């Protein structure tokens, strides 16, 4: 290697100044390719918060999306520039969180490509394109997205739209194992990032709109062998099994498609579960556990310890899979080890994570479907239940006050930062259709509409963790579909739908920096990392996902229709 570097340096001298820019990257590349790959141990994952890299989807097991870096801060963020960028040459939605370990960055794209690059200059080290089964694409409801990879040992993991989980050698991209969790194209798909816990790769499936029965699986991280599998609709004879009409749990949806959270103190996974199928609750009377809930699972066995249902008798597609974040908070003078969650149904929940009891819930958007909490349980408004004969106009829409776009929780400000969609909907039942594998199992007509209380589609808002009350809100005409990132520099990063990456003052919401207009709108998850003492912030641009497909009036809004497409990774630094 020493020899190689010398050759490169001599070559640089010979080539002269005119090629300096191009050649200057070669030594860096050869260094990075040769750089030892730091092994991702269990200890590093437990302490991921303090790592210089970004080792998992939401940075840490608590899922805070908060980084302790101060290199980029309130005082200098206005100097932020593009350090490097990388086009994916794909036109669908780019939702992934870039991961970084040492000098290695791992990003995923739509259609299950995984790219490893040098985290300091974007040089591609290898790229792996999963050979997707064409049939898999027949039952992917909401664009062919992927939200990111996971790391453990010397491997990098990705779930696929055809329900594989693959493990690749992080240095070379060579496949180490490939486990199939479900057949392709029958309703199931995987879009979320895996979570590695105690040497197990944990992941949940999607497919609620096709009546696929949800499950969470833990695989041996070294071999891919399935160690446990927990279905998230309860079968007869198991707890919650009596909450379904006969046989309905088999096609009842309840898909845990968003990455969960892990409490290493109690060895508990907290995982959100999606909506029941079909949509109208009158077609499947009962609580339909564990749909629209968070489940607390024993991470060794997958056994359910407790659950909390965000939306009982859901007829609105208020999928409960949104992430939960571990944080301590004080409510009415009492301190709790809490789990906070901004739900599709428009309520911000704080649960006691030791027992699943409600601490408080506050609406964060205009809500009419669920208007009250009673005895710690959300109470749907019976007036807003659609039937086959009855159309209702209710809020929020089926896309939710917040969809999968992750919130961040900042321990310094003690606030949660929520990407928000302000929308309502018309919804009405459709004539019942029998379940058929490969077909939508929805049985409803619906159209997303403007929220009559605001002209704006989107906002980023900050809520006080001790009360759920709004502290600040930044409103935009366009919808806001990018996750948020909080940093110790006093900043909140997130990206706008028209392609501006932005930094807000975490305390006040004041806009401190707006990037130049990037090549596409942003629906990605920003991450940040430090290499050689220098802080970087990474984000995919690449408009797409569910909003422009299913978004009714928001999808038809000329300002939304004109958002350009095309995936492009941007990394910023001072």
């Amino acid at each position, binding site marked *: 290697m020493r020899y190689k570097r010398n050759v490169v340096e001599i070559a640089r001298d010979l080539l002269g100044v005119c090629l300096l820019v191009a050649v200057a990257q070669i030594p860096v590349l050869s260094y990075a390719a040769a750089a030892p790959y730091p092994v991702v141990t269990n200890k590093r994952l437990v302490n991921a918060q303090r790592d210089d890299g970004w080792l998992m989807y939401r940075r840490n097991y608590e899922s805070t999306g908060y980084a302790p870096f101060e290199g980029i801060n309130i005082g200098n963020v206005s100097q932020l520039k593009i350090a490097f960028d990388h086009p994916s040459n794909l036109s669908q939605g780019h939702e992934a969180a870039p991961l970084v370990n040492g000098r290695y960055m791992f990003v995923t794209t739509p259609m299950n490509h995984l790219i490893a690059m040098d985290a300091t200059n974007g040089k591609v080290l290898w790229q792996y394109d999963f050979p997707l089964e064409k049939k898999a694409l*027949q039952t992917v409801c909401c664009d062919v997205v992927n939200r990111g990879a996971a790391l453990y040992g010397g491997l990098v993991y990705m779930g696929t739209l055809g329900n594989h989980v693959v493990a690749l050698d992080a240095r070379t991209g060579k496949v180490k194992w490939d486990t199939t969790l479900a057949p392709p194209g029958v309703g199931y798909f995987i879009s979320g990032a895996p979570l590695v816990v105690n040497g197990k790769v944990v992941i949940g499936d999607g497919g609620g709109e096709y009546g696929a029965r949800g499950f969470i699986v833990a695989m041996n991280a070294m071999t891919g062998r399935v160690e446990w599998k927990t279905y998230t609709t309860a079968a007869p004879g198991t707890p919650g099994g009596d909450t379904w009409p006969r046989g309905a749990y088999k096609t009842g949806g309840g898909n845990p498609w968003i990455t969960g959270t892990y409490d290493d103190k109690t060895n508990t996974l907290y995982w959100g579960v999606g909506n029941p199928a079909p949509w109208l609750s009158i077609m499947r009377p009962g609580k339909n556990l564990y749909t629209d809930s968070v489940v607390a699972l024993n991470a060794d066995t997958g056994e359910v310890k407790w659950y909390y249902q965000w939306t009982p008798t859901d007829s609105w597609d208020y999928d409960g899979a949104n992430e939960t974040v571990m944080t301590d908070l004080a409510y009415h003078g009492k301190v709790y080890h809490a789990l906070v969650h901004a739900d599709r149904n428009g309520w911000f929940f704080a649960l006691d994570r030791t027992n699943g009891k409600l601490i408080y819930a506050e609406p964060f958007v205009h809500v009419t479907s669920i208007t009250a909490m009673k005895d710690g349980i959300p109470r749907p408004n019976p007036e807003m239940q659609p039937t086959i004969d009855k159309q209702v106009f209710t809020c929020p829409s089926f896309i939710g006050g917040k969809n999968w776009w992750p919130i961040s929780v900042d321990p310094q400000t003690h606030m949660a930062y929520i990407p928000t969609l302000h929308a309502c909907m018309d919804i009405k039942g459709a004539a019942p259709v029998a379940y058929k594998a490969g*077909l939508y199992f929805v049985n409803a007509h619906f159209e997303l509409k403007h929220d009559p209380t605001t002209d704006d589609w989107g906002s980023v808002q900050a809520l006080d963790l001790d009360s759920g009350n709004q502290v600040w809100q930044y409103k935009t005409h366009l919808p806001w579909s990018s996750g948020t990132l909080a940093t110790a520099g006093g900043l909140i990063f997130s990206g706008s739908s028209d392609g501006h990456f932005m930094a807000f003052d975490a305390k006040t919401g004041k806009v401190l920096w707006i990037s130049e207009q990037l090549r596409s709108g942003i629906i990605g998850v920003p991450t940040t990392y430090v290499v050689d003492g220098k802080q970087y912030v990474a984000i995919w641009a690449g408009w797409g996902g569910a909003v422009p*497909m299913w978004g*009714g009036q928001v999808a038809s809004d000329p300002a939304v229709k004109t958002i350009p497409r*095309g995936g492009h990774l941007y990394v910023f630094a001072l």
Partner: protein
Amino acid sequence: MSSRCSNGLRKVQLAAWLLGAMLMHRSGAAIVRHVCIEQVNPTRRTDIRIVWAAVMFNRGLDRLRISGRLDPLIELFKRAAGAQSSALHLQPAIYRQSAVPTSIDGDRLIQSDAVTRNAGNKHSRIPPALYTDKQAVAGAVAYYQNCAMCHGPLLDGQAGGYPGSALRGPDFADPSYDFRIKDIFNLVVTLMPAATPGSLQPDVYVTIMAFILKQNGYPAGTEDLTYEALAKSSVPLRFYGK
């Protein structure tokens, strides 16, 4: 349909064949995207060819934009127009595409009868004739107006770079699904177009279904397809093309 719209289309038709012309008809491109595809009279075969040319033009444009090659190309024109930023760069990619087909062949989709005649040897039965050619022609334009933005002008869906599923081919009509025509039709009238489900006129849904059947190798016949027949048709949906 305004004459201005029609002019815009013809400009773009030209541009689709002459790439250089593309740069000179920026406004034409904008008209095609925003007005013309939505206003074409859906009865004439020539109109479909023009729509097809516009769609292919937009795909080519998007491909350039997504790969970052568009800005350098139009730099001169931007300066001439005094534009601060690239108007084309900001154009909607309604007909976005990252991989264009190898040839721009407007007839490939609208004249697939020849393909269907050869399908008999792959299946035990020749597919029934369920719709008229006139319905399929109307359906083609309605498809481009309402469906192509998600399912792609070639009906190849995600495989072609679009977010929606394929509506044509052996995976869409995989026998293991055992889809019947009513299954797909009832789904389409309930949930499509995804952004505004149920918003099209019943006869428009019928023509779109005729177009989809045609693309999957079903031949045209002499009797009109009807909404009622589609809603209860147990005819298996299979792919009879190549």
